């Protein structure tokens, strides 16, 4: 994971973020992928980040427990 020690220009970091989130249009994406072909570490960063984001989206949404508002108002009363 050499990319962890590397610092890229903010514009490159911006491109990685946009690439990972599929926000680049075709021309930009093709151009950026040309850059990725030339830089192994940057390519690993971009591809890994893209996969990592997919995994994170699999995390289930946790929900607040029923009756939170009532319990909150009880605490508010106790505090006053």
């Amino acid at each position, binding site marked *: 994971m050499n990319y962890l020690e590397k610092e890229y220009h903010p514009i490159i970091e911006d491109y990685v*973020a946009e690439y990972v989130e599929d926000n680049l249009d075709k021309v930009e994406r093709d151009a950026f992928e040309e850059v990725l072909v030339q830089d192994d570490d940057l390519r690993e960063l971009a591809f890994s980040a893209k996969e990592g984001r997919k995994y994170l989206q699999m995390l*289930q949404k*946790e929900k607040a427990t029923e009756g939170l508002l009532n319990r909150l108002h009880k605490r508010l009363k106790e505090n006053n």
Partner: protein
Amino acid sequence: MNTFEVSKVRTYSDEDLMEYFQNEHVAAFNELVRRYQDRLHNFLYRYTRDHHDCEDLIQETFLRVHKSKNSYTRIAKFSTWMYTIALNLAKSLYKKKQRMYKISIHKDPNDSEDFEMLIEDSNILPDEILHQKLSIEKLEKALMALPEDFREMVILRDLQQMTYEEISDITETPMGTVKSRINRGRAQIQHMIKNYVELGTSF
């Protein structure tokens, strides 16, 4: 500002609700709790991994919103202001728990009753569900293993769907650093679990 109408409470913006709450309309506060309780739970659970602690933190966050309502000004987005409170509370609890954990792992060698207990799990799960459960657990652990600065930003972006600008405001970090940490945080997650979950398989 228009007169507050309970029947329209769900149509007001967060910032309008705060202003109505500043004018003592409790229904406006209740609506903010309703809007954010699940999102906050989802956010804070990543720090606590305990639903009870998580509820305590949510309550504490809203207690502070309630107590400090008059210090809120419309210049800031309500969610940014509230998440800043929640994040600070979560960090404090996380540090406190880490200290407690470090203390609790030292068992007393002079105490004959201080021993480990093995508890058998009688809930036998089918393979697929078990794999899914283990994978999610692995993912949760990978997230917890990220450096704190990386984790909070990844959570705010990928679990809370906040904009980079909002994350920059909440964490008081330059935008370039936010993007760099999120990029690396995501990549590290992938690296930590790549041997565990095959690409293309569903959890």
